[in-house]
């Protein structure tokens, strides 16, 4: 009798469904994106170092143009962070609903 019960229980060991796999895959890529973001930001902010300035004889960039570029970069970083934050929260909420899944915090 007990062996019959065991037989019934056997198929249950956790095997993540395709949906969960995809979700955790998304989550990891999202984490990758979050890790890459500062490098993107650093690269964008290092770019002004290549611009010609008044010491080289070339026509220097105007300050307003420089301001536009830097504030645009800044804004882009913020926007990406917002998107990332929202996505992260949504994924976290979905995973909280599913106790089997790894927690988002990891």
């Amino acid at each position: 009798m007990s062996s019959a019960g065991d037989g019934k229980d056997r198929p249950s060991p956790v095997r993540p469904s395709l949906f969960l796999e995809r979700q955790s895959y998304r989550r990891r890529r999202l984490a990758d994106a979050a890790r890459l973001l500062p490098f993107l930001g650093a690269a964008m902010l290092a770019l002004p170092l290549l611009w010609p300035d008044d010491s080289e004889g070339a026509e220097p960039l105007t300050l307003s143009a420089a301001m536009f570029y830097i504030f645009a970069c800044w804004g882009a970083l913020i926007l990406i962070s917002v998107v990332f934050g929202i996505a992260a929260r949504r994924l976290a909420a979905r995973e909280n609903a599913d106790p089997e899944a790894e927690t988002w915090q990891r």
Partner: protein
Amino acid sequence: MATLNVLILVCLGYVVLLFSVAFAADRVAARGGGKWLRSPLIYTLSLSIYCTAWTFYGAVGNAARSGLEFVTIYLGPTLVMVSWWWGLRKLVRIGRSQRVTSIADLISSRYGKSNTLAVCVTILAVLGGTPYIALQLQSITLSFSIFAEADPTGLYREGSSVFWVAAGLAVFAILFGTRNLDANERHHGVVTAIALESVVKLFALLAVGIFVVWGVAGGLGPMLDQIDASEIGQWHVDAGRWTTFIFLSAAAFVCLPRMFQVMVVENDDESHLRTAAWAFPLYLLLMSLFVVPIAVVGLDLLPEGSNPDLFVLTVPLSQGNDWLAMLSFIGGFSSATSMVIVTAMALSTMVSNHLVMPIWLNTQEGTASVSGDVRTIVLMARRVSIAVIMALGYFYYRLSGGGAALASIGLVAFAGISQILPALVGGLFWRGATRTGALVGLSVGFFLWIYTLLLPGMEGGIIPASVIEHGPFGWGWLRPQALFGIEGIDPMVHTVMWSLSLNTIAFCVASMLSFPSPLERLQGAQFVNVFDHSVSARGWTGSVAQSEDLMIMTQRILGTIPAQEFFQAEAERQNGRPGRLPEPTPQFLERLERELSGSVGAATAHAMIGQIVGGASVSVEDLLAVADESAQMLEYSSQLEAKSAELSRTARQLREANAKLTQVSMQKDAFLSQVSHELRTPMTSIRAFSEIMRDTEGLSAEEQTRYAAIIHDEALRLTRLLDDLLDLSVLESGQVSLNMGEATLSDVLNRAVSSALAGSDRKIGVRRVRASERIPLHTDLDRLGQVFINLISNAQKYCDAVEPVLTISAHDVGGQVVIDFIDNGDGIPPEAQSLVFEKFARVGPDKAGGAGLGLAICREIMQRLGGEVTYLPGQGGAAFRVSLPLAYRQAAQ
């Protein structure tokens, strides 16, 4: 209109407002309400204490001097926030799981709870904080001076005003920062007040910016044209400074004690970082949005030589917009006060937890936790340290002359505090980082920072000009602002580059060369892999803790009523019966420690409970000690076991020896009785016949002869018996000396057979295989012969066959010479076979009158000769086997 008096009144009113906001927030939080108090928005706004008066005033000044360079100070933190997934998340998680109270606590905790390290970080933080506080003093003083110039009453003196500002800020910080003892619990009141100040300063700056762009310049388009036309209107940055400042501000953003306080210690929920990751950069962006327009308009409107650091104030003033100027002043004042409050809170916590409390605990050795009012000590320590820190800032301001540009003073502080970065980052990500590494790295960076930046920056002449120009002792390569002879680098870039790179190198090298203590390794693993196990490292075992002592101590620290409430709640939780003291379970002790650590810091709380619980806290070191002890005990017990085994072995041997002795004694008794019996038989007949001969008259000569013969025979028998006994005793005592000689077995047998058969009336046939007897022997031939004679005469005596025949054969078996004597009689009955070699053992009736010693003597002789004589059962008749080792034969060859 905007007189100094009005200004002071406005300031005081603002401070009162802040106090009431803080008070209200605390009340709301205490009642468990105010969900918004724990919202990500408040968290983000509290982070903006990063923007101090330096930012508020200095950014515009910086922009007026060097264009867009000011923006680097904001870009660094933006990058850090954007990369929260990398670093801040881990930092916050560690801060929460390890119950960290300050950055010094974090560093010391990571490196094996080393207080030395905590002291170093504290000193560094105080020294790094000093210029920063000087900066706040300067900004407030300058802003006052602006209003003073416009004030017709003109009662303003700079020197005294700096002092009063410093004193006022100190009082403010003491009142605000040490209102309650808890350093670890969330300060909802203070955080809310700071959030309000953040809103005020952002609002003020935006208001000035909007006024400048739309009120003065006449819209966005004209503003941009004006920017491009101004003297800073062309893109120009120094590449070294640009990257260095971005890096430096990023480093300082993490390392600054006040940033750590709001970011990690005051963090309520890790997920707030997710919001702050974009909201705080947005705040920074808004703060810097109008900096360049204000600078450009200021440069344009104000007369040559006016201080660009104060454009935020002077531009509205010059346009006659006093209310806006007042708002702007409040913004700057907010920036300064919020920075000073949080810095004072953070630094005083560090100073009291890592400098004062350890010293105080040491002086109160043993009884510290239950005597003296800890609350007053801690509060006093905090208040005094705030006063000292403010005084240091004041003196730095006086020493540096107050003339340097605001931004550069801020950068000096940044460079100083950034020296923590290698130890911090290494501690978070590298398990190999050690305490020694952290100490060495910090010291190197700290020294270089003082030598190359802090001291040369003081105009009071602490470092003589000759040293700055030619180096100490004339060594040019040690010039403070041109280390290793590399000149022409910007002093900030120079310091940051050398100090941080050498700091990092020293940290890494010393870490690799040193070996961490067990506690360090454990903490290292807990920090680096914090996401794998966020559990606290230590635990208490409270079996010996005294609840009453704990209660007394807790009352001293938390106050009577909170302590009683805490204990009641705990008792209720434990057994549902309030009114009794709770059992000191490990969980309770841990909760209590957490509660106390909120007041006096984790390390001190740990030490205090440790004193009461009697060091029963289970740390790794304790565990190791226990393990050592048990190893020693194991060793000891195994030694004991060995000894007891040895003892039982000895006892067994003694028992055996005793049994043997008893047996021997019994044998001796038996032997004596046998001997006396054996002696008695012939003596009886000798006595009887000699009495007959003496007493009987008229004995015939024939009779006399016969009796005398009997007496003679018996005397002979006695002699023989005594000879045998003597022989046996000599043999048994081992005192016999062997008379070694050489002959063949055949010779020995010949002699034995002839002497055994001589004079015997009973004939026995002897059959021999002479071919096998040609074995040379090296032995005592007489003794061997004696054995053979004995065996042959035994056969002759006891063989009961009609025609007795004795077969003697010799073999070489397994390296031994074996001689068998087998007769054709009935043999010895099995039950007697084991006895034949015993003394006085006789089989059957004593026909031949032997004493029963013959075979015993044979056995003894053969043992002396290195061989043996045994009985061979199952050969048809009595069979004896004499074996001699072949070695005797080989020795003979």
